[in-house]
């Protein structure tokens, strides 16, 4: 259990006029020697003034207020909070990589380009897809890249009647938001009672207006779409493209190739499925792969190997254009490259199998007390659900907060939307049996508390630097800055 930490002041509240953390050499002349008066700043910005030591204390103290994967079990479903080897942090930040300008002559950046080319090739091998762009900066950015690639594909065929993207109701919110951003109308389809795609509903929604069908595999309730190839066939028969959301690819790498499932487009999350820490909310990287017929429409440029030299100057006349300035979140991509070089096919298989084994272990251990919403073998995550009426009025959010008191981060809650009071638990492949046993113990103790002292659960957390937060008040009168 974490100890209670005292309230932490803002850096500005600790600030004293005239204090400094870093000094640069003095310029010979003031800015007014170089710029006309009208171009100069008129007021001093309200930035904190701290010494270096105070700055170190301030941010160290703040860091201690966080739960993090290095410290705590972090079973956030769909977020794949698995261990990322420390070597990748060090190797991706080698000065030879970190201090390289993106517009430096290509002859001076062959090392970086070779690694990126290597990553493109390895992603192709793992997925069976024909080409990969490394440009997208995150999963949602990858989705947008994929959907815009599909749009460029249809437009090139002058197939302008396709205005709809089909998304199942279990999808992450980013799927419909992405389709809308790409200028498409979103068609939501209900899932079947077993949590998988309702093929009838899909068939009814498909038409010559369908541009893309977006599907997450395994889906967000942790199930593999058993009829995936039939689904892909129907999508293709309707003239639409089949987009796979790779948010949960850690459970597939080595077990199944997306190309074999009929995927035309797919994004991967380097930061979840492979090997980059999440950084409190990014940076990630969301490479997008495409089958051969769609590949020419991916963003430009891609790394190519020509006459023994790596280059970004290849022509891609059908490309949709650029998704971000420069070439992608390179430091994150380098971590992905490290990961794919450190394991072979056999190990990837084991990694995926362990993601599945761990999720099923937790499901089996908890399902008697917390209802497994889909009571069957799952893939990399399991969805638990409670009925507050049978739980002394305790809600999922209360259990999540109480878990913090036991030294565990909470599962993803209230998602997927089709499961009431959902708790989505993803232990990931790197957790030990002992850690999962401790988590199961904590959940069982909370279950007992719900029967004997429910108020303790409803008032949780009791161990953090703040108690339960009133989030509604923050939105009513927003205070977003000092």
């Amino acid at each position, binding site marked *: 259990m974490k100890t209670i930490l005292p309230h932490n002041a803002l850096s500005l509240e600790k600030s004293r006029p005239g204090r400094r953390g870093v000094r640069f050499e003095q310029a010979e002349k003031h800015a007014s020697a170089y710029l006309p008066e009208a171009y100069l700043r008129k007021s001093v*910005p309200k930035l904190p003034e701290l010494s270096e030591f105070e700055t170190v204390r301030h941010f160290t103290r703040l860091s201690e207020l966080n739960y993090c994967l290095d410290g705590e079990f972090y079973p956030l479903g769909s977020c794949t909070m698995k261990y990322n080897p420390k070597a990748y942090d060090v190797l991706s930040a080698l000065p030879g990589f970190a201090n390289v300008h993106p517009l430096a002559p290509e002859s001076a950046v062959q090392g970086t380009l070779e690694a990126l080319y290597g990553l493109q090739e390895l992603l192709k091998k793992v997925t069976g897809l024909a080409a990969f762009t490394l440009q997208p900066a995150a999963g949602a950015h990858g989705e947008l890249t994929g959907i815009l690639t599909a749009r460029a594909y249809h437009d090139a065929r002058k197939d302008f009647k396709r205005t709809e993207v089909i998304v199942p109701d279990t999808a992450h919110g980013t799927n419909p938001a992405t389709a809308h951003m790409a200028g498409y109308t979103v068609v939501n389809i209900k899932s079947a009672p077993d949590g998988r795609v309702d093929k009838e509903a899909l068939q009814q929604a498909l038409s010559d207006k369908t541009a893309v069908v977006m599907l997450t595999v395994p889906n967000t309730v942790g199930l593999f779409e058993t009829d995936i190839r039939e689904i892909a066939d129907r999508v293709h028969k309707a003239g639409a493209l089949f987009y796979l959301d790779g948010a949960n690819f850690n459970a597939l790498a080595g077990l199944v190739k997306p190309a074999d499932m009929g995927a035309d487009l797919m994004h991967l999350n380097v930061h979840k499925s492979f090997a980059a820490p999440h950084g409190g909310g990014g940076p990630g990287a969301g490479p997008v792969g495409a089958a051969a017929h769609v590949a020419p429409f991916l963003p430009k440029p891609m790394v190519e190997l020509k006459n023994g030299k790596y280059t970004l100057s290849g022509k891609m006349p059908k490309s949709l254009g650029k998704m971000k300035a420069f070439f992608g979140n390179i430091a994150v991509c380098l971590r992905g490259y490290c990961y794919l070089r450190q394991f072979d096919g056999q190990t990837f*298989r084991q990694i995926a199998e362990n993601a599945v084994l761990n999720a099923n272990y937790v499901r089996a251990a908890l399902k008697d007390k917390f209802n497994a919403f889909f009571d069957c073998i799952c893939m990399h995550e399991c969805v638990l659900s409670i009925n507050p009426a049978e739980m002394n009025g305790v809600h999922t959010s209360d259990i999540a907060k109480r878990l913090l008191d036991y030294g565990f981060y909470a599962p993803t809650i209230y998602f997927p939307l089709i499961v009431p009071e959902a708790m989505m638990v993803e232990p990931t492949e790197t957790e030990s049996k002992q850690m999962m046993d401790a988590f199961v113990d904590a959940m069982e103790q909370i279950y007992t508390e719900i029967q004997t002292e429910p108020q303790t659960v409803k008032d949780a957390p009791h161990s953090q630097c703040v108690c339960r937060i009133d989030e509604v008040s923050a939105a009513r009168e927003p205070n977003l800055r000092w």
Partner: protein
Amino acid sequence: MFIPHTQEDRQEMLDKIGVSSVKELLSQIPQDLLYPALDLPRALSEQELTAHMQALAARNKPLKNFIGAGIYEHFIPAAVNALSSRGEFLTAYTPYQAEASQGTLQTIYEFQSCMCALTDMDVATASHYDGATALAEAALACLRLTNRTEILISAALHPHYKEVLQTYVRHQPGVCVKEAPLGADGTLDLEALSQRLSDKTACFVLATPNFFGCLEQAEEVSSRVHQAGALLTAVVNPIALGVMQTPGSYNADFAVAEGQPLGNAMNFGGPGLGIMTAKKAYMRQLPGRIVGIAKDKNGRRAFVLTLQAREQHIRRERASSNICSNEALCALNAVIYLTLLGPAGLAEVAELNLERAHQLAERVGKLPGFRVKYAAPFFNEFVLECPVPAKKIIQKLEKKGLSAGYALGKDFKGMENCLLVCATETKTTEDLQAYAEALGGIK
């Protein structure tokens, strides 16, 4: 090892689940799809991987860098990475459970505050992928806010920003992007700007410094844009704001920037740090995460993700953006950097940039056959017109260990002899001299 289970662990787990093998757990996968051949290279040990990556890093040539063009080399104090690489920051997720994420949440609040202070704007978001996508998202917000259909941009907007903007708005019904041309001094032709503004213009995208390094007459631009009933989105350089007039001071509606210069390494251009600030009136149209202050049930100050009704996980296809993960760790680097520098340090580093770039311009502008192309004021980069194609200069200087600048001919017709040159505080007087000498022999 990456997978912790012993054979015994595995067996106990299988027993608990009630299956006899792991393969049984995979029965929902069609068996003909299962276990494809992967053909991956031999797995490297950590030691082998380290040697391999070191060899790749060594294949990059360490040239002395005089390129800016959107990514800038600045000194990063050691405390920045020492703090941001703490596992407590590095390995946390997006702060969904606020009570156990107060550290990350407070740093984002402080980041937002620093961005507002830098730009003199009212509100800031938690971050975007980079400056270009922040601009594209700001432009989308302007289209929504004005119900107009035209985005007018400076011809001297970064070429990558132009392309990304096009990618993002191309499929919005009826929307088009138009350019306002430059005058002879490298800044906007104000009369031409006025002519192109109309009651269709949703926003004007002003870049200052612009891609050629020139500073614009922002106040004059702003009043013309607002007269047309359009919104002003400023693209700025955060280090320059240590000494330069702020977007808030010239009444910008949105200000966006690439935040990489604030404590983040160049990393071959990514990750970047998209900064977006705006007037308070547009708060509920902003894309992406925002942190605010709330109270816990004992009345104590606490930080939370707020205004989430704008976001994809709540609003789905009606969200203001699809953005989910952003660049939190880069924003952390930025706020640590600014906390170390304070207002005085930021002004100091900005003045050093001004001085080094002007010293370099003076040296190379005097060389026979070379001239500084534009007369407009500039910050830390400028266009050097050369007697030979800029590409040739880059090749020649590379042999002397220098990265001479960015050749503008690729993106701007008729500028084949123009080189965009940058000198930040990282370039010493000796470096400037070496650069001028290397250019000196070229005719």
